[in-house]
């Protein structure tokens, strides 16, 4: 129960970050930024995947993970591990893009990287300790 609550809390943070970046994308405004590179990252080709904003994909993933945190059982935990691992892997790819080809760092992306990693760790811990539903 504690792990599910912790995962839910982390997912809420993730939803907030992803929702803000999705809003910024569709409203064509510049994100609040202290690292100076947010707009460059936001305008880069890496900000979209097959025409879909990656922020929106992240928002959908966090909503799914939030929903799974409300469901008991090993099956829900396993699906959560998979979705969170996809999130971590994709975040790693985007971090590589920021450090390499783009050459700019977005603080919101870093905040998301930390959040999705925390969510993934919590889901793995949950998967290893969850009682069958």
């Amino acid at each position, binding site marked *: 129960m504690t792990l599910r609550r912790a995962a839910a809390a982390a997912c809420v943070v993730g939803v907030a970050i992803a929702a803000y970046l999705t809003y910024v994308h569709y409203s*064509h*405004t*510049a994100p609040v930024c202290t690292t*100076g590179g947010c*707009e*460059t990252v936001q*305008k*880069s*080709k890496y*900000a*979209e*995947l*097959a*025409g879909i904003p990656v922020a929106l994909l992240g928002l959908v993933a966090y909503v799914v993970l939030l929903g799974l945190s409300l469901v008991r059982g*090993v099956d829900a935990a*396993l699906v959560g*591990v*998979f*979705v969170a*691992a*996809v999130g*971590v*892997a*994709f975040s790693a*790819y985007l971090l590589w893009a920021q450090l*390499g*080809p*783009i*050459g*700019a760092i977005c603080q919101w992306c870093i905040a998301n990287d930390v959040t999705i990693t925390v969510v993934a760790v919590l889901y*793995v811990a949950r*998967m*290893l300790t969850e009682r069958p539903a």
Partner: protein
Amino acid sequence: MERNRLLLVAGAIVAAVVVVVVIVVVAGSGSKSTSTTTAPPVTTTGSGGSGTEAQSTFAGVPQHGDTLGKPTAGATLAVYEDPQCPYCQQWNIDTLPTVVQNYVRTGRLKVVYHGVVIIGTNSVNGLRAIYAAGLQNKLWNMNEALYERQGDENSGWITIGLIKQAAREVGANAAKLIADADSATVTKELRRSEAAAEAINLNGTPTFTIQKTLGQEQQLSVAGLEPNDFTSALDAALQ
């Protein structure tokens, strides 16, 4: 029991990594590419957007005609581009904001636009609109606004309607811009740009040249169009 769950976790993580690799590779290969430019063979995806983004890139930066930046800047970066060129779009969307932020706003560089027709006749409509926007000192805003709407090469995407919409979004007087697009002044600008392109033996877009104060105009050789690749070449040329 414990061992089974560890295997399930490992399997889920491996599957997730495979899924991400496949998605990145498939999405990358589905991106727009072209063979009519001289840029490195990188791919780019079209991006939606509006003149609001263009305004935020250039907000507060002096613009006069085809020139972006302070007239007293220590060096001039000339950009030869075609509004239909996908690599030009990539550079303007991905890299120009960094160049503006780190070089133009700091007074190290001014950027001069040279529009040329490389892809096809529809480019002329775009170039006329861009140079007409220059008469309102909004050339760079208009240029970016058109790239944000870029369609397939020679599909006829640069229409009067699209130009009007882009002009309004960048805060230009759309009616004046349309009228100016066919003016002798804009025709003269196109000829001037064409002559400049011939002078450097231009054979593709985007092409960049750099000229330091009292120096010769020299072609800027870049390894790629992303910010890091471009600014590395720029830093070397400015030394």
